[in-house]
């Protein structure tokens, strides 16, 4: 009985350390998996650029975002490993802002179409008014200015 308990305890100690080792290794690999490297930043930079380009196509104002992306691209050339996370955060921030600009850009583009349509409709209305009212107006003015003339 006593021998059996001892052997169980002997088994549990190595098991405990094995388990500890597995947990530590897992934690280690977890942190490695989430460590940001230069390629991660470059990949996200490309994704952000695509978002910014899409925002531009939608008519949004992207000048500030392009300035920030360009700055990140230049800083990345000489960045250290510790700085990659911060650069990645900034790249993702640009992507988020680009998506917001994109959704604002579409109505802005539509507004331009509405304004142009309104100008064309107003032009048509003005032409109709001139066509319908100008002869009357013209002769009224003519009579007012020359109505008291006497033909001799």
């Amino acid at each position, binding site marked *: 009985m006593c021998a059996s308990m001892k052997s169980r305890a002997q088994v549990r100690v190595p098991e405990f350390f094995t388990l500890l080792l597995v947990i530590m290794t897992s934690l280690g690999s977890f942190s490695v998996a989430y460590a940001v490297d230069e390629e991660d930043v470059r990949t996200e*930079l*490309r994704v952000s*650029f*695509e978002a*910014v*380009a899409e925002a*531009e*196509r939608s008519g949004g104002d*992207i*000048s500030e975002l*392009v300035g920030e*992306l*360009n700055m990140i*691209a*230049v800083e*990345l*050339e000489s960045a250290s490993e510790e700085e990659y996370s911060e650069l990645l955060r900034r790249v993702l921030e640009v992507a988020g802002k680009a998506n917001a600009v994109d959704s604002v850009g579409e109505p802005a583009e539509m507004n*331009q*179409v509405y*304004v*142009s*349509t309104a*100008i*064309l409709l*107003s*032009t*048509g209305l*003005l*032409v109709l008014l*001139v*066509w319908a009212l*100008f*002869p009357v107006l*013209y*002769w009224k003015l003519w009579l007012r200015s020359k109505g008291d003339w006497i033909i001799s």
Partner: protein
Amino acid sequence: MTIDKQISYVIMLVILSLGVLTAVPPILPERVVEPFTELVVLGPNMKLGDYPEEVEVGEPFTLFLYLGNHESRVMYYRTLVKFGSELSFASETEPMDAPVIASYDHVILNDDSVTRQLSLSADTAGSNRRLVFELYKYDESVDDFVYSGEWVQFWMNVTSPA
């Protein structure tokens, strides 16, 4: 046709022309005659010419890179700097097969430009070596930088340190 009709037609024509000229251009897509990018390398004094012709191995020399975007859209550029030998071949279709000594990425708005100072150095000696700047543009459809066919080169003599 009476005089009032004649005048009214002229007025209608003027109004119609003004209306169309005001309303139509903003809704038409912007017309670009020929999209292009300026790739210029300036000497140490930010001028064309005055380029270093003879340098020592490892000796840093200064140049300026100028990129101008006239592609009618925002662009993501990569400029590769390569040091080739006398026999290296550079062309508009194929990038030069030589080691890359520097790479510069830039995101530039349409009708905007970037000028930056470069500090370069040669790693091996040789006469009539070609320093080539190649321009790559990011292509969203392939998710990579594609050689644009634009390149600039200088001939340099690289000497061993005394």
